[in-house]
């Protein structure tokens, strides 16, 4: 893998990532948005998180893993419960990782 190739990817990836992040903020914040669009936007955060969690937990690595021996699924349920009870994002994340390591070890 050549150095030029790696640097080219790094530079273009930086530009591309900024290009998807910045224009919506710069442009949309200067518009007066119609009510239905604002309502639509209010559902975006929950929709993105719902699809991210489902993908990570039920299709880890892009392969379906819909079984009771799925360590991602078994660890996600207590993680959700811990967050619900404690409202601690940090506590839930760390507890989730520990539970995941434990479950993976148990499943062999």
């Amino acid at each position, binding site marked *: *893998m050549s*150095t030029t*190739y*790696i*640097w080219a*990817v*790094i*530079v*273009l*990836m*930086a530009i*591309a*990532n*900024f*290009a*998807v*992040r*910045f224009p*919506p*903020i*710069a442009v*949309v*914040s*200067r518009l007066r948005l119609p009510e239905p669009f604002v*309502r*639509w*936007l209010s*559902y*975006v*955060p*929950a*929709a*993105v*998180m*719902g*699809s*991210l*969690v*489902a*993908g*990570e*937990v039920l*299709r*880890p690595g892009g392969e379906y893993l819909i079984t009771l021996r799925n*360590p*991602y699924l078994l*660890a*996600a349920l207590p*993680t*959700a419960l811990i*967050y*619900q009870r404690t409202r*601690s*994002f*940090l506590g839930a*994340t760390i507890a*989730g*990782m*520990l539970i*995941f390591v434990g479950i993976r070890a148990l499943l062999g």
Partner: protein
Amino acid sequence: MRGVRLGLPIFLGYVPVGAAFGVIATAIGFSALQAVVCSATALAGAGQFIALNLMKEGASVLAVVAATTVVNLRYMLFGATLSPHLKDMPLGNQALLAFMLTDETFAVNVSDRRTGASSGASMAGVGAIAWAGWVAGTAAGALAASLIGDPSRWGVDFAMPAMFTALLIALAEDRRQMAVAAFAAMLAIGLPALSALGIIIPSSWLIVIASIGAATVGAVAFR
């Protein structure tokens, strides 16, 4: 400082995942400097891992950049969602917040916004500490790859899913939001199964399509 405190969990979650990126990047031929610069300028989580996969397979520069861009199209939705709250902010500050926008900083800021306490400064704090975690983790992984060994041993595989799970619970606060999140989850799991019918949806588009679909159903169904 409030923002830094809010973002601290993100920092701690990003360090191990950033370290995994550093380990894998140097294993496929990045120098430590390149790995760190990549994390510092792209701040693209999943997008960066996908890039490494494609580069390992010898994909062209354009193919790599296109794939990470599509994976990160959801940032456009984030920017649009946050923008009504950033109306009175100068363009330079908006650019800075845009640069530091990730799944986690977005979700933390949105949920903080709902408590009414969020400000431009707190959002910048959340972004800065998250960025620091991602870059520090990458540096540690790239420089100490041999000490760290296989990153998955440390439960790193579950760092992102754990953060996403907690953020989902934080954001799906009422029945409507829960219904939209559940529908998005069904789409994200159901759509790839359409490949059995010959309808192939590239995995890099899944999150964007599922999110837009579910938010649209929510906006139409719940008035």
